[in-house]
Each structure stands twice: as C-alpha cells, then as structure tokens.
C-alpha cells in the first residue's frame, strides 16, 4: 500500500504556543485512519493545515510523495481532499444539485446549465443510494441526508482523501448506520478516509488503524486490532496533573443550594436531576451535544423547559435572566465574545454592566461614576486583570484569560450565590487557567455554589467535588471525588457502559 498523505515533522504554533508539534505520520491509500484526541489536542489545527486554512510553522506535508503546501481550500480540493464537518457547509437555500456545483457551474449561453447539473447530480446520488431528487432544497433534508449530500459533494469533486470530522453528532442511529455503510463503499472504491470522532466504539469498528494526539503530539498509533477502547482512553488522557490546579481551600457543606429535579425538554433534556450544595464545585461533564450547555441556558431562564422543577435556596426559580439574577444566579456562558462581553466597550463598562443599578442615584438613576470607578478598580485588583487603564481600554484589547476574568468579575459585583461556569477556560492559556481555577475555589470557599461545565475532564477532576456526567440529554452518573476515574467517566460520556 502506498502513502497518500505524509506528515513530516509537521508543527504549528500560535504565538509560540505549539498546537501541533513534530507530527510524523503516514496515511495509507485506501485505508481508514481513526484520529482521536481530547479537545485542544491539535486535531483541528492538523485538519486546517491539510485543508490549506493555516500554514505549518515548520515541517512539511507530502501528497503522494511530492510536497503539498495548499494555500487555500481551493488548492486542497484540487489536490483531491474533501472535508465533511460536524457543522455542515451546505447552502440550505439551494438545491442539492446546486450545492454540488457551487464552486463552478457549467454554463450554456452564459446561463447555468440546469439540465447538465441535474443529470450529473442524479448519478452521484444514485451511487450513494440517496433517494432524493437533485432539485430538492437542502433545507428540507434531514441532518442525515444532508451529511450524505456532503459526501456526494466529495464524490463530485472526485476526492481521493475524505476527512470526516465528528460526522455523526447530529445524526440518528439509523442515519449513522447509513453513513457507515456509505463509508464502506467509499473505501471499497479505493478512497482514503480519515475519521475523527469522540465516539470511540465507532472508531474501533470503522478504522483500520488509529492515531492518538495529545497536546499537539502523536502519542500512540497502531493497527486497530491492538487498540481496544481502554487503550484509546488511556492514550488520550494520561498526563501528570499535579500543579495544574490550586488546592481547594474550603469544604462543601451538605446544604443544598440549587436543586434541579426531573427537568425535561423534548429533544434537549430528559429527566435531568442534580443538586449543587453550598461551597461545592459540581463538575458537569459531557461531550458536544450532551445537553450540558442547554441545561445551563434552561437554568438561567434563557430557554424554556417543558417539565420539572428548579429551586435555588428552596425557592422556585421563575422568569427570565433578570429574575434569575435577582434570585442570586450568575452565568458565564461558553461564548465569551458573543454573549459574555461588549467587546468594543471599556473594561470598566463591562465590569459594571450587571451591577450598574446599584450605582444609580436619584430619580434619574444618575451613575455615581466616582464610586463606580473605585469599585471597578477593586475588581481589577482582586481579579488580577492585567490592563493599563480600565476606564479607557476596550475589553477586546485583553488576552482571552483576562477577558474571562472580566466576565466573572462583572457577576461578582452582584455577589451571587450560584455561579454557572460554562467552559470558563476555553481559549485561555495555562497561566490564566490557574487563576480562573483559583477564582472558582475562592467563590466556593465563600459558601457559594458553582456548576462547572467543561468538556475537559482533566480540569473537572482537578477542581470539582463531584462530577455529573451527561450524554444525549440524560444524566449518566454522579461521581464523588474519591471515586474519580477518568476511564469510567469517559465510558459514561461515551455510553460505553451504563452507570
């Protein structure tokens, strides 16, 4: 078997932080490579290099033995690479046929030759056993059918290497089975596949050999026969965690602060119950699509829930975000830029947004800017925000870690009882991560509760008193600190074993 794509000491750094480091690996033609790793392991960076979205810092790629340095998505397509992402890149307002031809319509007399594209598209759809007409608007198709249209697009471009990145996240089991069937066909046609997934059972079943990335390095590789799921998990984690997390300075009490009981919302959550005690950091672990962030939004009154009850300090929670804030809740969302900060506004304006009411004086609610400035200065000091002039500097000029401190800081002004932290360390460097963990520890030590949502199991094992595992909208287990076992937690999240 020849190698279709070879990585030769490939590295990519972002601002001298390595994302992929010295990666040497060959992809054999006509085989299926399973690529696994935790979030931030370097999978996306590697894919972006193959796709020509980012250029390597050093090292090189070889395509069928000759140097391959794509300078854009078009170069990659021309070489014969196709991507199928978890978020589909289809135009939902166009037809199936139009989507296939979007990067080059055949024309007759200057107009799109619809007859030709329909006929050709028909042929490809037939090869995939996809029973939809080429004239169907993509928006009317199910997620599974759309996924197959992506595959059709790859076939249309006659791709010899097809990279599937978490393709089953939004598919039903039947649609998934169908996709796997199509993958088998593609392989039989001699095409090469790279399959990226968190669902390790699928990886074991579909792939010929496995490569595991961790912290940008290739840590383990071999034929699938030697790779049982436990070995995959061990290779994916396995890192010395000492010193990454501050020691916990308080002890959780037994007094319940937040009680979620039997909350359901069709298609999102099913019968979710959990409790956060005072002084406790409750870790909530789940993969993408497990319902972890959806639960957070429901807790904060941003989304509705069909049934179940939510109680904070034994009082039932009602209404929207304003009522939840009044009840003593704070929400650091997973989208810092879109939902957390006013990027163009100053640090002070951001810090004061939640608590601004208490600085209003008189019937007009004139802002007492002197005491606001003093209070913001205290926040800057307490949080260790590294900024020059908080009244002048826009928050977008800060680093990710400092931005996140501003988000946490704006809530601290209100002195909330319960913090929901959703992926609080995403896009934050190691040093600032430690500071954010310390903040979480202080908040809990003061007798408040934290619901700490993360897709990084390491940080939950480092910080949480208990971990609740969710998968597909359901709670799979509730594990106390002494029983923390990453393999077991991952198995629950992957539904490898029942709780």
């Amino acid at each position, binding site marked *: 078997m020849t190698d279709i794509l070879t990585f030769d000491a490939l590295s990519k750094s972002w601002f001298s932080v390595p994302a992929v480091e010295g990666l040497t690996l060959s992809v054999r033609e006509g085989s299926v490579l399973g690529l696994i790793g935790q979030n931030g392991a370097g999978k996306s960076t590697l894919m972006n290099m193959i796709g020509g979205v980012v250029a390597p810092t050093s090292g090189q790629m070889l395509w069928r033995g000759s140097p391959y340095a794509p300078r854009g998505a078009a170069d990659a397509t021309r070489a014969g690479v196709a991507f199928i992402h978890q978020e589909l890149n289809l135009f939902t307002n166009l037809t199936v046929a139009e989507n296939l031809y979007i990067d080059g319509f055949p024309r007759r007399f200057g107009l799109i030759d619809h007859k030709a594209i329909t006929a050709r598209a028909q042929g490809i759809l037939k090869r995939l056993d996809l029973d939809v007409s080429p004239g169907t608007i993509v928006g009317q198709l199910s997620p599974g059918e759309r996924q197959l249209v992506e595959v059709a697009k790859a076939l249309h471009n006659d791709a010899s290497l097809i990279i599937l990145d978490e393709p089953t996240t939004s598919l039903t089991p039947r649609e998934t089975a169908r996709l796997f069937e199509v993958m088998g066909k593609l392989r039989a046609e001699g095409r090469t596949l790279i399959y990226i997934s968190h669902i390790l059972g699928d990886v074991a079943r579909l792939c010929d050999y496995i490569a595991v990335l961790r912290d940008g390095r290739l840590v383990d590789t071999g034929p699938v026969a030697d790779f049982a799921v436990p070995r995959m998990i061990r290779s994916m984690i396995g890192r010395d965690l000492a010193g990454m997390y501050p020691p916990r300075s308080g002890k959780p009490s037994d007094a319940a602060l937040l009680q979620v009981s039997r909350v359901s919302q069709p298609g999102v959550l099913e019968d979710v119950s959990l409790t956060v005690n005072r002084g406790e950091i409750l870790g909530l672990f789940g993969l993408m699509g497990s319902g972890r962030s959806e639960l957070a939004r429901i807790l904060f009154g941003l989304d509705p829930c069909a049934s179940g009850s939510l109680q904070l300090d034994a009082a039932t929670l009602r209404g929207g*975000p304003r009522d939840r*804030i009044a009840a003593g809740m704070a929400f650091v969302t997973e989208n810092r830029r879109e939902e957390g*900060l*006013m990027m163009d506004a100053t640090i002070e*304006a951001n810090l*004061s*947004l939640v608590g601004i009411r208490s600085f209003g004086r008189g019937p*007009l*609610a004139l*802002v007492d800017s002197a005491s606001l400035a003093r209070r913001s200065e205290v926040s800057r000091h307490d949080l260790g925000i590294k900024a020059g002039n908080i009244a002048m500097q826009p928050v977008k000029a800060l680093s990710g870690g400092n931005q996140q401190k501003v988000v946490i800081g704006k809530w601290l002004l209100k002195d909330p009882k319960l913090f929901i932290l959703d992926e609080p360390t995403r896009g934050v460097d190691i040093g600032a991560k430690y500071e954010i963990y310390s903040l979480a520890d202080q908040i809990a030590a003061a007798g408040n509760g934290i619901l700490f949502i993360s897709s990084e199991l390491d940080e939950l094992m480092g910080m949480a008193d208990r971990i609740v595992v969710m998968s597909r909208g359901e709670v799979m287990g509730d594990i106390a600190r002494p029983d923390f076992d990453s393999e077991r937690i991952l198995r629950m999240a992957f539904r490898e074993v029942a709780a």
Partner: protein
Amino acid sequence: MTETETSPRRGLGARAADLFLSDYFVLYMSLAYVAVLAPFLPVLLTPGNVVNVMSNMWPLLIVAIGQTFVLAIGGIDLSQGSTIALTSVVGAMLIAVSANPANLDLAPIWGTILTENGGPLAGVPGNVAMGIAAMLVVAVLVGLINGAAIAIFQMPPFMVTLVTLITISAFTIWMTQSENVANLPEGFIALGKGDIVSVYFGAKDESKIARKVIYSAITYPMVIAVSVAIIAHVLLSRTVFGRYVMAIGINRKAAEISGVPVRRVIILVFVISAVCAALASILYSARLEAGRPSLGEGNFLLDVIGAAVIGGTSLFGGKAKIIWTFFGVLFFVLLSNTLNLMNLSSFQVDMVKGGVILAAALMDVLRTRLMRERTR
C-alpha cells in the same frame, strides 16, 4: 497605555489624529468651513443669516437627538417625519381658533372637529398646554407601537418604522385632506417665533427702528432645543438608562444575559424618538403658524440621519453622543444654508448633501480603524 501617550514629544501625525478623534472634530470642521467660505459669501456672517441658520437648527436638533437614541441601540426610526406631521395636525386641529370656511365640507376633521369657531379647545383657558399635551400623547403612542413591535415581536426596526411612516403619513393626509390647519392661537405661535432677548445693531438715536433690523438673540426654540439637548446628554451619558442603551447597541445578547431590561429600554428609546419628533413639531408648526400634513416629508429623514452620522454616531449602534449630534446638526444646517446662499437649486443641494453624508460614513470607518490601531 499607548506609546504615543507616554512619549513626551509627539509627532504632527499623532496630533492630527487626536484632532480627528476628538469629540469636537465636527465643530472645528464647521468653523473651518465658515472661515473658508466667509470671504466669498459676505452674507454668511451677517446677523440676519446667523439668526436664520440658528432658527433652522433648533427643531432639526431636537429630532436628531431622538434619532441618536435609536441609532445608539443599533436601530433606525424612519417614522419621525410622519410623526411630526401627525402631531402637528393633531395639535393644530384642537387649538385652532377658526377654520377656513372653504374647507368645512371636506371631512373627516373639517366640519366635525374643526368648525367656523375653530377646534374643540379654542378659547378654553390653557388650551395651548392641552394641545401640546395631546401632541405628546400621540407621539408616545406612536413610540409605543414602534417599540413594542421591535422589542416584543423582534421585528426589524427598519421594517416597523417604514410601515409606521407610510401608515401615519397616509392617515394624516387623509384626515386633513391635505389642507393646512391654520389660525393657531398667538400663545402657540410665540413658541416658534417668540424672542426672549433681541438685539439691535443700528444707531442709538434712530427714532423708529424697523422690525427687520432687530435680530433674535435668544428665542423660545433655542431655549427648548438646548434644554432638550442637555437633558438628553445627561440621560445618555450619565444615567443607568444610558448605560443600558449603549450596552444593547454594542451587544444585545450579552446585555440580555447580564440582566439589562432590554425590551423596556428599546420601547423607551422609540418613545423618546417620537416625543422628540413631537417637540420639533411644536416648533415647526408654530413657525409656520399651521398644522401641516406635509411636514417631515421628502428628504427630511436624510437631514436627520445625515446630521447624526456626520456628528459621529454609528449606524451599527453602541457609539453615540448628544454633543456629536449637536455639531453634526450645526454642520448640516450650515451646509444647507451656504449652498442656498450660492443660489443652488434644491436638487443640487441634495446632491451635495448626499456626497457629504457618504464622506461622513467613510470618516466613521477611518476613525474606527484609527481607534483600533491605538488601542492595540
């Protein structure tokens, strides 16, 4: 914070950039414009023309202030002009002291609300105040309708206010059958024309002074507009409400999650916009001595939004200051005035205005880029 601030000696370029980014840039620009044109247009700085420029400025300033609030939340209010017309007609039909007998068979308001003896409030003590109150109530209703549609039903402001614009102006024209409602009481007319302080530049021993050589120094419109500007300035820059307005303009989602009463603020902003239109309507109607269904038509909206944007208010929200709008209105009115003095037709004037607004939009882009470089 930036290197330029720490270094003691600063280059010419940096100082030019400071000037460009200053709140007073448009004021400097207006002064420079006058300085350049004055030698060629001697009439520009005569007392008569200065009074004229100012009297044109005050009502436009009030409307533009209302629009500034809407622009600050990232919205737009196209219905201000039609609100001016509607409130003008409503106020006038209530307080008119008599009606033109030729119109009395026109219906719907002629011969019913308006008779030979004027409107229902004619001759009633306090009628001017009641008429103004009615105008404000109508404006609040318009603002509530706009605001509720936008905030509660999440409809786009452009669409909602376009529909109100069309509906209200059609309603106003139908109501009056396109006829002006004249014969307003003196007390009302004084609001648009009355002087509080007048000046006379002629000889002191003149036995008789002609009316036209007495110039207005402080007028009711000036006092009203400046008061509105000061209140609006405080509201936008010093109050919790103002912070909320800016927060919504910069990032509505973040504002919502942070507990900003987003809906209430949006509704209030559209009410402010409509009430400002009604206040301007008082000045316009008083100056024209009639309720006019055609007020605020045509390119009026261009003047309002143009003035705000020239001042530096961003159409994307989150960037607005009343003082910017003040200078923007000043520049815009000066521009119209000078172009008129050059004997250009109204079409030529509008062409130049269009170009200037385009230049202002370009300036906004440049200013934002410069800001970004400075804060990097």
